[in-house]
């Protein structure tokens, strides 16, 4: 069994003159729930579509569950579930008819899972797709993706535009599947609150490339807010500045540490994951393509 669920190496995708992805290298281990965050147009959807085999990269390579995605790789298709906001439901169908259709076209379909999940969501098998709310349609679409029992789920903003209750129900359904089957999930989201609650791996994208990716816990552990008086503010070696704020009294930096800070002149505070994400997004926005050199240059 491969221990890497999604591996991209120098992945690039060009649409005409525009680079949707540039030099993307990332390795997401199996069993993780990985969040893909970043502004619209950062390349999240393109990365997911390439991983699902729906789009071919212009250069670089991608492997999912140890294989190369693509239309001809049927064995891999059954092991990977992909869902975007198109939500492929047939409006005239009843939920049970959708399920029967899916059962006939998916060799790994598990009808028991499908029934259990919609029952839990309070949706009847007799309900017609047109009669469902937007939230319920999203829930049925996810149920259908989950009932294929994929090893890897690629979800493009699965909870976007849902009301708070519908999104909670949907995310709990997703987490139930993870609890029962140890499914690997890679999902894109704009809701930073979801990252801390359901994700344990984080990939931050900005300007068509990846500016940060690692275990969420490691990311939080290795970043600290450091404050000091400007006259004493000299950062020790091995500390990279992600963001800097200055007041007349204080200089405050969000620092990436490679080892515990021994220097007592700095006041230390633990950043929230939202603060870390925002700092990397600002870093990517202020110096597109130069994020890594900005970090390397700090001392």
């Amino acid at each position: 069994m491969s221990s890497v669920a999604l591996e991209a190496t120098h992945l690039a995708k060009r649409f005409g003159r525009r680079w949707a992805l540039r030099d993307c290298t990332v390795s997401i281990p199996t069993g993780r729930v990985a969040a893909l965050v970043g502004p619209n147009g950062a390349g999240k959807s393109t990365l997911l579509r390439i991983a699902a085999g729906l789009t071919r990269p212009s250069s670089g390579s991608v492997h999912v569950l140890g294989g190369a995605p693509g239309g001809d790789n049927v064995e891999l298709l059954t092991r990977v579930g992909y869902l975007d906001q198109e939500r492929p439901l047939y409006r005239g169908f009843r939920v049970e008819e959708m399920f029967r259709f899916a059962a006939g076209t998916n060799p790994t379909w598990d009808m028991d899972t499908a029934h259990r999940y919609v029952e839990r969501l309070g949706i009847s098998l007799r309900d017609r797709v047109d009669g469902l709310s937007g939230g319920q349609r999203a829930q049925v679409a996810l149920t259908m993706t989950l009932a294929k029992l994929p090893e890897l789920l690629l979800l493009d903003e699965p909870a976007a535009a849902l009301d708070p209750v519908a999104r909670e129900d949907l995310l709990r359904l997703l987490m139930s599947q993870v609890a029962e089957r140890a499914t690997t999930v890679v999902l894109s989201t704009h809701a930073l609150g979801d990252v801390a609650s359901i994700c344990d791996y984080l990939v931050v994208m900005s300007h068509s490339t990846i500016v940060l990716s690692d275990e969420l816990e490691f990311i939080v552990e290795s970043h600290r807010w450091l404050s000091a008086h400007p006259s004493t503010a000299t950062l020790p070696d091995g500390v990279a500045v992600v963001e800097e704020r200055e007041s007349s009294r204080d200089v405050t930096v969000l620092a990436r540490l490679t080892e515990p800070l021994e220097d007592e002149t700095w006041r230390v505070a633990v950043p929230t994951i939202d603060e870390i994400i925002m700092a990397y997004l600002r870093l990517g926005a202020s110096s597109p393509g130069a994020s890594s050199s900005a970090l390397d240059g700090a001392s």
Partner: protein
Amino acid sequence: MSAHGPSIHFRLDARSAVAPYRQLVDQVRQAVAGGRLHGGDQLPSVREVVTQVTINPNTVHRAYRELEHLGLAEGRAGLGTFVTESPYQSDAAAQYEQLSQELRKWTQRAHAAGLDVEDMTDLLGRILNRDARVLS
């Protein structure tokens, strides 16, 4: 109290700087210290927890492992995770009570000195952070 339903309802503050698994560990510790959970009580299964709270199941596993490591819970094969029977639990509850009384007195003094809730939280946070650095 109902005989049915989980022994503890976890909550998760996604905005907190405290790691999610640590939040669960703290809630069990506080429930034990406050006498709401007792030795032998079964903690909800990971599958139960993810239907209660929108949380990553790996986080729940992690929290339960940490509770076992701390000696506060024990996994019983095929049965689940249970709060440990401990002769020190009554001591812990008494100690907890004494500490909260002392803190209550301190907050009264702080209030009289003009500190509001945010000021006190900030001060405590600073002291704890400093301690954390010394300890780790």
